[in-house]
């Protein structure tokens, strides 16, 4: 079930009144039922897999939780009669047990995810080597698997870390993993923050309804008017890389930046808006990412929940892990600077390799991830240089022009990296990128080039207005959140704005017969 389907609209429209009309203790059951309806559209296989993931995670977390409880009890019991080394040894033993359970759980579930993502490809390679004919076509990534696996595994890791106790009610874990608005394209959610609002009873509030509806409308606006329109041109540019080189690559980069932003943030707006209708607060996933001064900041503001997940559960654990510590110590002989950098470098590349693999199953994404890591490290190494530069020209950094320069530079840089996401192979991407500097064909753009991309002049005009609207909203957001301010507006103004949003979507949106509303780009993962 896609966001742009009548069945999704109907599900939400039916869910909201039912959710508030039933007795509060039944609200969770209503949500579970809605999730089941949602997943019924994705097929029973997908549903059973999700059920298995949630329930097995519940079991593992309970097991780990029991070990924690046992440890606490034992330690209290032997508070006086055990000596320090005794206690320490006991704690280490228990930790080892918990770790073992956790590793089993992670291997199992990330193994399943890995199998779905790469199974077909790996089988293809194996078939090529051994001449077998195993069919991998059934190993498909089911809807939302990338997102819910990460969310649920985050929960188990947190329990192992003792951040909070294991959940006693298996239905709560299931509800957390299957909450349908976040199944489509995230955000990757935390059990403690989402769970708190998800499991709590909610009373109807006009403010929530209003904010939810506005947020949803704005999401559809971005998605249907801007993203799905520009996607036509982007696809055309990518399909014929030999024809569309040079300036067209630059054009494609910028169009893709707008498309991806409108598509992904639009989808998240719909997700958060649906949650809001139910009084449930879903984590934000974007913080005006295109206004970042550098790539590191961009990754803190774009797909924030994924970045946070990788940092907390992969980057830091790897960088302070025992093997890496030992390696660092050994590296001392080669110099202190080298030793200090070693864990950072290794952890960075590890995380970015995995991030790349999360985004797609071709070599392109691996290279894309590693390039991101390399740029992050490079800019980190250069930061003393920057600092010296700014000490020399202390006023420059505060000027409007310089800030605009850093923002544009960052957008261009990350858009260049995204070429890996567009083209099919690494050499093709590099050729396209190189052609920007070697092929001079800028005038071709307005000599018929732009019109050949499947969009009319009017489409470009609408897209431009759409991008301008998104830009304006982002600028307004600099002064704080938008929806609370909107809430204070007089009624007539709110109705006018909402009516205008709906009407413009109806007229200018790309949907309906003969136009297959493009799947949300992030839905693939």
């Amino acid at each position, binding site marked *: 079930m896609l966001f742009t389907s*009548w069945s999704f609209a109907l599900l939400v429209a039916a869910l909201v009144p039912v959710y508030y009309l039933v007795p509060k203790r039944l609200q969770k059951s209503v949500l579970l039922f809605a999730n089941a309806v949602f997943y019924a559209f994705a097929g029973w296989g997908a549903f059973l897999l999700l059920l298995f993931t949630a329930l097995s995670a519940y079991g593992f977390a309970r097991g780990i939780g029991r070990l924690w409880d046992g440890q606490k009890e034992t330690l209290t019991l032997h508070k006086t009669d055990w000596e320090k080394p005794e206690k320490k040894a006991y704690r280490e033993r228990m930790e080892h047990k918990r770790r073992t359970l956790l590793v089993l759980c992670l291997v199992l579930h990330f193994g399943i995810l890995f199998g779905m993502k790469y199974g077909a490809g790996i089988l293809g390679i194996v078939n090529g080597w051994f001449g077998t004919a195993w069919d991998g076509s059934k190993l498909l990534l089911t809807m939302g698997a990338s997102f819910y696996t990460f969310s649920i595994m985050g929960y188990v890791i947190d329990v192992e870390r003792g951040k909070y106790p294991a959940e006693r009610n298996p239905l709560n874990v299931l509800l957390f993993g299957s909450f349908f608005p976040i199944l489509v394209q995230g955000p990757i959610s935390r059990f403690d923050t989402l769970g708190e609002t998800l499991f709590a009873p909610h009373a109807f509030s006009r403010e929530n309804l209003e904010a939810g509806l506005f947020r949803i409308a704005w999401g559809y606006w971005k998605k249907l008017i801007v993203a799905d329109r520009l996607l036509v041109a982007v696809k055309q540019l990518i399909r014929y890389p030999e024809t569309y080189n040079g300036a067209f690559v630059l054009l494609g980069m910028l169009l893709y930046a707008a498309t991806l932003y409108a598509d992904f943030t639009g989808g998240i707006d719909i997700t958060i808006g649906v949650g809001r209708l139910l009084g449930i607060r879903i984590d934000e996933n974007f913080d005006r990412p295109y206004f970042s001064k550098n790539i590191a900041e961009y990754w803190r503001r774009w797909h924030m929940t994924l970045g946070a997940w990788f940092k907390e559960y992969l980057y830091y654990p790897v960088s302070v892990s025992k093997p890496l510590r030992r390696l660092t110590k050994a590296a001392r002989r080669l110099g202190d600077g080298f030793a200090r950098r070693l864990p950072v470098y290794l952890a960075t590349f590890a995380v970015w390799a995995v991030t790349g693999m999360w985004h797609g199953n071709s070599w392109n994404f691996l290279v894309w991830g590693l390039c991101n890591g390399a740029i992050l490290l490079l800019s980190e190494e250069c930061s003393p240089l920057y600092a010296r530069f700014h000490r020399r020209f202390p006023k420059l950094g505060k000027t409007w022009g310089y800030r605009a320069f850093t923002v544009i530079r960052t957008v261009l840089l990350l858009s260049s990296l995204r070429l890996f996401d567009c083209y099919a192979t690494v050499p093709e991407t590099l050729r396209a990128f190189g052609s920007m500097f070697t092929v001079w064909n800028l005038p071709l753009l307005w000599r018929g080039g732009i019109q050949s991309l499947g969009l*009319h002049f*009017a*489409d470009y005009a609408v897209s431009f207005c759409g991008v301008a609207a998104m830009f304006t909203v982002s600028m307004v957001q600099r002064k704080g959140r938008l929806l609370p301010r909107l809430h204070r507006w007089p*009624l*007539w103004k709110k*109705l*006018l704005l909402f*009516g205008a949003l*709906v*009407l413009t979507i*109806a*007229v*200018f*949106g*790309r*949907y*309906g*017969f*003969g*136009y*297959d509303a493009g799947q949300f780009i992030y839905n693939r993962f």
Partner: protein
Amino acid sequence: MKHSVRTIGIWALAAVLFCMSFGFVQRLVVPKYQSKSIEGSLTEEYYRETLGHDVLFVGDCEVFSNISPAELYRACGIASFIRGSAQQLVWQSYYLLEDALKTEHPSVVVFNVLALKYGSPQSEAYNRMTLDGMRWGSAKIGAIAASMTEGEDPVSYALPLLRFHARWSELEAEDFRCLFQKQSVSHNGYLLRADVRPVTRTPTPAPLTDPHLPETSMEWLSKMASLCKANGIELVLLKSPSIEPYWYDEWDADVQAFAKEHGLWYVNTLTQNDAIGIDYTTDTCDMGQHLNVYGAEKLSRWFGEELKARVQLPDRREDEAYQRVWQEKLERYDTEKAAAIAAQEGL
């Protein structure tokens, strides 16, 4: 209290304003079918009629191109209307008939059998041209449900804006001019053409894969027969003159069998060419697919006489109410016919 009255007022005003803007934009973007694809206007033009009809035609282009109600009236005194549309499928004919029977009771319904060859929905565009003009009611809903092709969305029939919104960038002067008022493009459902493109070759029909007409079509035809029977209407099955598309003997046999079983009159004009006098060098506008006005008038005169010989029909030329209305229709018909002929000769 005062506050809530104000709030309700704002809500009501907003709702009205929204519906009006939506309706306005919808009117604007929906195709007007006035100069392009004018067949799209046919379905709705039926509702402009003020008097009843003794004969109703239903079917595809072989009715709206080949029968001239004006000539039927002038030569035989028959008041008729053609509820035809491009590639009208059997179930659409059925529902258009059901829709018409809600407001009038003709003595005869003539169904053109060519469309029987289609047993499943064919084209979204033709669906829209046939169905969008229908007035709302059970018949329209039934027709939509029976006609939708894959990927079509029932909501967009209720709100055509959702279907035609992409036209916002292709609006023409006509869309603004005809926002609230449209010209009749037909003469009681007949689309007049005076151009001549003679038949130059005899078609070689492709062999049939299935010797029979699709079962679904025949089921809908049965339903139509029952509907007519229940309303005391004489159903006539007609195969209009044409060279192409080819009318197979196997299909003809199926229709004959059906007519025999239900006691219906089936006229296959392909066997009556000499009596009708169709000359395919002068009477067709597209090499034998459709008749032009010369051919249509010949067919209408012949068919009117045959019909009168079999069914008791009142002569509406002697009915004063009809005289007034039809006088105007005939004048417009003659003027447009003369203009069309002049335009052809001027070429």
